[in-house]
């Protein structure tokens, strides 16, 4: 087992284990911190796959931005840091069944698939390719995403403001 495979395995384990912790811990704050490791693990996997720019974005945006905001939100809201979350028993059963079904489907896919290897050499750096892609082939998704963010922001702002006004 070479070092690369070992690292991949490690990042994978880190991601899955911390994600399980996020899902199952009843303490909201613990879940938030644990999410840090999930994001980090995913960033590591990106690096292993040669997607350096994506890994950097993952760290910057998800860890530096979203997670920090999330933790701020939890810590600044009264009662939230100590809040405990529970999921009802029947729902847990349903979720487990659905999850197992999905897992089965994926395992089937993973093990049955031939996984043909692409022989192209990995690019040295991906940032410029991604940049060009966003300006040409993937211009529309880029623009649509901006509308998406705008709509979400508008709605979120207004919902938050209204909640404040109600008091």
């Amino acid at each position: 087992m070479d070092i690369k495979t070992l690292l991949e395995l490690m990042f994978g384990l880190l991601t899955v284990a911390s994600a399980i912790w996020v899902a199952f811990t009843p303490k909201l704050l613990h879940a938030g911190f644990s999410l840090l490791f999930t994001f980090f693990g995913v960033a590591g996997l990106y690096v292993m796959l040669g997607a350096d720019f994506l890994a950097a974005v993952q760290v910057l945006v998800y860890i530096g931005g979203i997670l920090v905001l999330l933790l701020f939100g939890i810590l600044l809201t009264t009662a939230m840091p100590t809040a405990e979350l529970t999921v009802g028993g029947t729902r847990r059963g349903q979720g487990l069944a659905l999850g197992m079904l999905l897992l089965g489907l994926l395992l089937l896919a993973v093990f049955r698939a031939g996984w043909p290897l692409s022989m192209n050499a990995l690019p040295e750096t991906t940032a410029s390719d991604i940049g060009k892609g966003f300006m040409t082939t993937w211009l529309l998704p880029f623009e649509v995403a901006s509308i998406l963010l705008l709509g979400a922001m508008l709605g979120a702002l207004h919902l938050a403001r209204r909640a404040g006004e109600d008091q």
Partner: protein
Amino acid sequence: MDFSGLNVAALLPELLVSGGGLLVMALHAAFRGRQDRQLVWVSLASVVAALAFCLNPLTVEPGYFGSALSDPMAFAGRITVLAALVLLLPGGVAYARSRNLPQAEYLSLSLFAATGMMALASAGDLIVLFLAVEVLSISLYCLAGLMGERESSRQAALTYFLAGSFASGFLLFGMALLSGSAGTLDIAALGTGLARVSGTGTQWVALGGVVLMIAGLLFKVGAVPFHSWVAEVYSGSPTVVTAFMSTAAKAAAFAGFGRVLLALGSVSEAWVPLVGICAGATMILGNFTALVQGNFKRMLAFSSVAHAGYLLLGLMAVGAAGESLEAVIFYLLPYVLANAALFLVAAKVSQAGSGNYKLDDYKGLARRNPWLAGLLALLLLGLAGMPPLAGFMGKFMVFSAAVRAGHTGLAVLGILTSVVAVFTYLRPVVYAWFHEPEESGALNLDGGLAFVVWVAGAGLLLLGLWPRLWLDLCAGIGV
């Protein structure tokens, strides 16, 4: 960089509508909300401009490097969405104004949602498809929460958000597996990509992708077994938003997913049985549940589940055969017209009666406003599929596609369940015409609502008698 494949004009309708949304926001800010009454005209102007472009497109080349298509389905889907918007925006603004809810936010979110819907109808690759779904979903979540003043509305928004996020997860996962195994994100190329891996182990990955994507689709359109959110969300959301969800959003979803299924025609044996069972179950469950509702809004909610079943049947039949989606495209327009008008009528009648959408509110409507009662009957019977109204031609096309594709059993099931549907739709008609009113006094419509109801009624009759109008238009503008 080579920009020769850009062709911005292909995306003009979307640009006009989203531009309208931005302009509304800017004007709202510039006038500090003092001129909000005029914003509806700005919005309608952008919608009408987009509609005019769709009816007479300057270009028919695909744009944005193949991400935005200009085929008949794209135009038909866009026109359907825009038509729903024209019918619903004035009513929505009036609703917001009467309850002191923010008009500008309502308008711009509606326009953004419509942008997403139109992008979905014309999406050429999976990325745009997914983003478009998200744009329309997120805008609708916000609208559902934004426009409500009651607890049920917030609850509906939350339910819609959770169900929608779940569906998005399925969708995205499915897309990843599908595009990974087919080696392309281009929807039209999925078929050939999958044909290349068929027989190899990779086809199992593709199969997983197809199943997950279809699950996501069924979720989004509210088909069995993923229909449970529909009743709560549709009846809990403000009626103008419900109308938007059940008409334009559904039309766009069917146009977008129709395109995907059409591309997956080469692996139809993998998904046809699955979709077939769901379509059958949706027709049965939707119609029978609608039958027992005592609440008009819930009845419409379940009837829209039932219609999703018929549309699925149509998608399945034409998708498997790799034929055009003419039947589905045709089905959608009268469905959208009738549903949009009925939801608005429901809001009006309920407001003048019990306030909670009881069927009893319709008792004696014919005495209070015979024209409204007549048009109500026309719209309901149009939805039910009585000839010579357009609903009949839609059902006829869907069932004939099903029979041609060899799904005669499902066509028979569809026809039998539509008898149940007729019975459901007749109940308000019976109340309106055969019962004595509980409250006396005329029930007058304001100009906007009267316009909507008459346009929808005339549309149903016209499309029923001359289905060619719409079919030729769809065929003519896209070729």
